[in-house]
């Protein structure tokens, strides 16, 4: 290795240490016997996991978040796929509006969206409702799902649908039987990303939370702000495991999709 690339490698690994350090610091603390957070953690205990799973408020928040995340995933996958398909199959003039609508919620800071929804939902009684959360989270997760689906859709040969229709299928059946199975892995991984985004979403949750129904991130925010107990590292461990599982699932789906498409090319 020449001096130049040695320098580059050294710099990059220092940066990676900066990236990974906080995560590797916080995860072991989940097993610490002390009630305050210190590094290195002392002793090994599963107490904080027990406390998390045994506390009805944490459990309620977790299920509440999971329910919202699952519904957000389904909503973005279905609504996003419909719109993307319509766009790719013809809505030339709507492309710009569509993109503006899609990008708007990414560009406009979440704080602005959260405050706007807070006002709107308070006036309509939607604050703290599953419906309100799902609508809000779908808005911010939509771009990720749509781009994942669009990537797959743009690589599907449109002649396949023509072929299906020449065999007697109508438009819907051509989509259902030909295009959808091909893009399904991407639709599902788009939904998975939406799930993670919703499950992890702190800002909107901060403003929309009702008195009783709080999402998991909202509970975590309060805990961090107030006393920061080792229950947070315990949740961090669980969330990291969840993220890794979802990422691996997405990678597996991508692998399957790629294998399908190569198989198609060969035949």
């Amino acid at each position: 290795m020449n001096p130049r690339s040695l320098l580059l490698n050294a710099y990059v690994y220092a940066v990676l240490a900066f990236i990974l350090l906080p995560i590797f610091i916080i995860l072991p603390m989940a097993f610490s016997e002390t009630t305050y957070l210190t590094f290195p953690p002392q002793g090994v205990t599963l107490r904080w996991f027990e406390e998390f799973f045994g506390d009805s408020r944490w459990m309620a928040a977790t299920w509440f978040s999971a329910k919202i995340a699952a519904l957000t995933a389904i909503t973005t996958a279905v609504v996003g796929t419909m719109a993307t398909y319509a766009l790719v199959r013809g809505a030339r003039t709507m492309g710009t509006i569509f993109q503006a609508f899609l990008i708007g919620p990414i560009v406009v800071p979440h704080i602005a969206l959260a405050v706007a929804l807070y006002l709107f939902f308070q006036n309509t009684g939607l604050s703290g409702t599953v419906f309100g959360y799902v609508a809000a989270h779908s808005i911010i997760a939509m771009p990720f799902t749509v781009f994942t689906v669009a990537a797959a859709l743009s690589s599907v040969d449109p002649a396949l649908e023509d072929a299906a229709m020449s065999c007697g299928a109508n438009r819907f059946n051509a989509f259902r039987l030909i295009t959808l199975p091909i893009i399904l892995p991407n639709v599902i991984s788009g939904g998975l990303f939406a799930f993670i985004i919703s499950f992890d979403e702190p800002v909107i949750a901060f403003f929309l939370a009702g008195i009783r129904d709080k999402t998991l991130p909202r509970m975590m925010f309060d805990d961090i702000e107030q006393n920061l107990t080792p229950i947070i590292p315990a949740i961090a461990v669980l969330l990291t495991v969840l993220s890794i599982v979802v990422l691996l699932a997405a990678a597996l789906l991508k692998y399957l999709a790629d294998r399908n498409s190569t198989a198609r090319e060969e035949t």
Partner: protein
Amino acid sequence: MKAGFFEANGRQMSRGAILLLMAPFFALVIFAFLYPLGSLLSLSVLEPSPTLTNYERVFDNPIYATVLYRTLRMALLVSLLSLALSLPVAILMANSRGPKAVFLTACVLLPFWSSVLVRTAAWSILLQRNGLVNEFLQGIGITSEPLRLLYTQGAVVIAMTHVLMPFMVLPIYGALRNIPFDYNRAAAICGAGPLRSFWEVTLPLAMPGILGGFILVFLTALGYFITPSLLGSPQEMMIATLISQQIRENLDWPFAAALVGVLTLLVTIITLVFSKVFRFERMLGARA
């Protein structure tokens, strides 16, 4: 904005079918984005009667003007720091193959997909009075007693850089990966050494990705709420915390709406100015 990614292809559908398929999407955006944001912004100019006083307050009151200026300065700092940290990582990622490339990508993606709250909490633990950073600083003799690191602008900048860095790495990496290998060969045969070739060819060609990542980080940092709220000092607020405070403590909706208006106007202008280099699909595509 270019629609390349959504290029229409295949047999076109009827107008009715297109509208039907798009209706849920547009309904959702109108219901949960356009209408709420519009009615909030209308508060800022209509409350109590048509007026611009709420906006005048933002700029005339030195406290609020300072918050705005501080927010811009810190967002810029975070973006510059992210760039300095991200560019070499993206370069090494783009030039690596096999297990090393997988390892580097995993290192960048893992924090990307772990909770923002968790990462902020980690920094709060690291930076506390008896935290690891203070122990380290005392250990090597930089300071004899613990420094106040938490609840400072420095803590906010470092933690936000940590949280937003992947948004910089991925677009730059994507841009670098899209540069055909032959360009560097052509530069070499023309007489350019590796550094010259990087400076004259690679960097200009990766510029859209670099600029895109920079703008994305800058925009996100401008309106960032979580990290400044948890790690920042109440005396040195950023705009998002100020908005939250105006609503939750002062219940001053028209003024909060004006702050949101300023913030939204700012990001919209920046987005439109840089819309050419702003290819979201590329950035988000890289995320998967």
